[in-house]
């Protein structure tokens, strides 16, 4: 029995142990950066191995507050891969003050741990605690940056907005508890569809969701995103833009599934948020000068696309959203990875700083181009297939106009992505900049990312089947 529970909790345990090891590495006065990096990389690799071993496990833990199913394990794998990728581009960690390198990795792992706990939590309090574990880790990670005070401003902003979102969420949870008399999702799922038309239930659910809308940066909960992306170290921004979003998508799926798709009002509200996020994110992204701010606004738009899959409340729509969060993790990470590798001293990049990239490093330029085309939803990339699936989900429910709006938005977004591609491929840098040296492992990482973005774009079958099985289990399981 113990052994079985141990297996169920394996991915989380790996992360817990990793966090402990890193904690001890924080203690010495003089730290060896190379050793810390190597240890962190090895631990992140172990984390992926743990998540892989955890695939296929099913069961309950901690008085049924914690559910291990295919749905949670798929997301844990996505999260573990995201952590590994982020650690992979932390070599040297030029953007973070030297004495905090071990702390940086420590909080990266606790954050990852919190997210993993989150996707398995099926009880409101457990969920809240898991969410706060990941949030507080991020509150610390954001201001760890070296240099200007931009990071402190971003950190404070993130902290305050985040805490407000948490409060709102707790308030919402209290309503849900009030109307359903339980904090277990399984119990709520039995009762909520019957009472969702009551204002209290509706408000409770919307307020609870807003905590995750905040994480996903859905309009109007997106105000932190551009400042935090800009203020945080590039690697931290990459982490927030990938892992954090995937976890939020998982929870939004779990929580919206509670309604059983019975409330039309609820879907209408989600639809408004979806359209507003896509349109506002894309339009504001057009005028951005800094690449991280541009990516922040584009993440608002992508939150809208994911929401389109979620609001269908159907198996196809949910699995499309799962697929999309995987796709988004890959392509957004690829874009951020290029930013990290080009900003060798950890500085923020303006779009115009990418000028001449095709000469300085053809590989990075190619990765960037494919990542951006993928974000714009151009085939044969994973971003296209993700959008295709999400739109298919919406069309299945008969939301023809929503799909049309989504496609128009995709065309708008192409404009600003093309501007970045133009900078990287067409513009010549004013000063003759030296070629960028990309180390062999990082070259390999770029090749892998390109291959993955194209592979999942052309052959979505395997992962889609997995996502569908996961969603089916999640919807019908309880």
């Amino acid at each position: 029995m113990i052994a079985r529970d141990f297996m169920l909790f394996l991915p989380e345990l790996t992360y817990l142990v990793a966090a402990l090891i890193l904690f001890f590495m924080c203690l010495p006065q003089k730290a060896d950066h190379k050793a810390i990096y190597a240890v962190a990389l090895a631990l992140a690799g172990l984390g992926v191995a743990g998540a892989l071993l955890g695939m296929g496990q099913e069961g309950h833990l901690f008085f049924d507050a914690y559910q291990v199913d295919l749905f949670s394990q798929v997301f844990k794998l996505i999260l573990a891969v995201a952590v590994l990728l982020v650690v992979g581009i932390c070599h040297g960690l030029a953007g973070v003050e030297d004495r905090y390198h071990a702390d940086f990795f420590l909080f990266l792992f606790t954050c990852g741990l919190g997210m993993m706990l989150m996707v398995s939590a099926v009880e409101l309090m457990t969920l809240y605690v898991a969410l706060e574990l990941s949030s507080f880790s991020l509150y610390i990670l954001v201001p760890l940056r070296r240099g200007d005070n931009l990071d402190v401003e971003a950190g404070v902003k993130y902290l305050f907005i985040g805490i407000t979102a948490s409060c709102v969420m707790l308030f919402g949870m209290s309503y849900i508890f009030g109307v359903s008399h339980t904090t277990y999702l399984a119990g709520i799922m039995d009762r909520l569809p019957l009472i969702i038309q009551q204002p209290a239930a509706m408000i409770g659910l919307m307020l609870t969701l807003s905590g995750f809308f905040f994480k996903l940066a859905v309009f109007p909960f997106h105000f932190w995103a551009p400042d935090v992306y800009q203020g945080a170290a590039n690697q931290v921004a990459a982490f927030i833009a990938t892992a954090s979003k995937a976890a939020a998508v998982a929870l939004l799926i779990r929580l919206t599934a509670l309604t059983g798709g019975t409330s039309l009002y609820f879907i209408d509200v989600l639809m408004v948020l979806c359209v507003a996020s896509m349109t506002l994110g894309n339009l504001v992204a057009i005028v951005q000068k800094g690449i991280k701010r541009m990516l922040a606004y584009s993440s608002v738009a992508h939150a809208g696309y994911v929401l389109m899959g979620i609001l269908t409340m159907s198996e196809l729509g949910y699995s499309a959203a799962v697929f999309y969060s995987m796709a988004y993790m890959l392509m957004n990470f690829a874009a951020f990875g290029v930013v990290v590798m080009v900003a060798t001293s950890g500085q923020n990049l303006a779009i115009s700083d990418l000028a001449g990239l095709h000469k300085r490093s053809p590989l990075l330029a190619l990765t960037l181009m494919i990542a951006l085309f993928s974000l714009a939803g151009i085939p044969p990339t994973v971003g296209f297939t993700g959008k295709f699936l999400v739109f298919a989900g919406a069309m299945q429910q008969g939301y023809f106009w929503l799909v049309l709006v989504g496609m128009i938005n995709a065309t708008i977004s192409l404009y600003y992505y093309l501007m970045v591609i133009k900078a990287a491929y067409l513009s010549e840098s004013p000063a003759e900049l030296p070629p960028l040296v990309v180390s062999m492992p990082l070259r390999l990482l770029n090749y892998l990312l390109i291959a993955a973005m194209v592979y999942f774009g052309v052959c979505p079958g395997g992962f889609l089947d997995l996502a569908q099985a996961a969603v089916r289990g999640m919807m019908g399981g309880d």
Partner: protein
Amino acid sequence: MSFPILSAIMLSPGLGLLAVLFLPRENKRAVRWISLLSAGLSLALTLYAYAVFDTTAKGLQFVERVLWVKSLGIYYFLAVDGISLPLVLLTSIVFFTGVWTMWDLEKRVKEFFALMLLMVLGVYGVFMALDLFFLFVFYDVSLFPMYPLIAIWGSTRKEYGALKLTLYLLAGSALVLPGILYVYFQSGLFSFDLMEIAAAGLPPSVQSLGFLLFLFGFGVLAGLWPFHTWSPVGHVAAPTAVSMIHAGVLMKLGAYGVLRVGMFLCPQGLVEWSPLMATLATVGIVYGALVGLAQTDLKYVIGYSSVSHMGLVSLGLATGTLGGVDGAVFQMFAHGIMTALFFSSVGHIYDRTHTKLIPELGGMAKVMPRASFFFILAALAGIGVPCLASFWAELLVFINGFQVYPALGTAAVLGLVVSALFMLRVVQRTFYGEKNQKYAAAPDMSAVMVIPRALLAGAILLFGLLPRLMLDTIQSGVAPLVELFK
């Protein structure tokens, strides 16, 4: 299973692409040779397929069909019929001659040929794929390389032209994708197999909306008026081979999309909307001809004549008659070859003189007799001189257009007269008359560079003299289709 010849044709640029990607940037010779070899390979395979294609059998041939994504009903489904095979042939010819034409390129050679190979891979895919998912994927794959191709290697207002073109075309595909998903779910089959959906038939209301989406979505790329404005700008900005492929092949993708997706899936939609389509087509024919009159840039002239000629394709399709659709498909082929020859000749003139403004040129027939010959031949083909391929195509479209829509048919003929007038004026001013001394010493095409142009000219003559060679093939594909419009 027999040899998958269609996959082989499609993947030969793919293989070339992979090989080019792994070559060092400095090795320009190898990049060119690999590109030419992969183009040659696909041309040879296409010629073989064309030769063994059975024109007496109706329906699809060389079928390759593999279930790709089970849960959504996506198939890797390649096949050709009498409609798509001529277009595959067109692609092969233009691709091969285009690579050859760009032999002397020196700027960022590797990237140029890599993008071009990728684009052609997409074009082949569109003409062969009969699964809506893959068709759309290939469609976009053939479009987005245009942006870097024009913006990096182009001329006149290249960044503006590239951006306008890309956004227009992808806005078009923003209508196509909802259309595809719409018919997919309305059919209730959970299959993206185009033939399966077409065979099952869709409710009339679905066909009506679906056809409109496909007409305007694909119509943007076909240069359908009033969505044509990207096309002359894009043609002018693009480098020679890209103009060739773009005007010669890519615009046909749009017309092909309207035909294959719009008309196959929504025949009732065509019947309902054909007056609108015919009107827009005719406006395009006349408008293109009139605007062409006022142009002083050789490439703009060809660009607007393309709008006019592509209007003929749309008019032919809108008639929904056997002869009209036959003519439209033939016109796609003939216009493709002709425009490629046009741009290929202009490209040479521009490379040597660095101008394509008609008033600055003049007397070029004496300076560059070879380049001039090819341009004039293309111009004659465009006018519709008998014994050249376009003649038969235009004749068929006019006869049928006139029968179905007498008023529009008359206007279209008048439009063609105007375009003949302006073409002849361009030829007269550019190639005859006063010689501009500045360019008197500009060298003519070398014998090696004559070969690709001669291939194109040969195709125009061959199918002009022996139209049955093409019409029989086309008819075998069109005949089953027009049954649907009755």
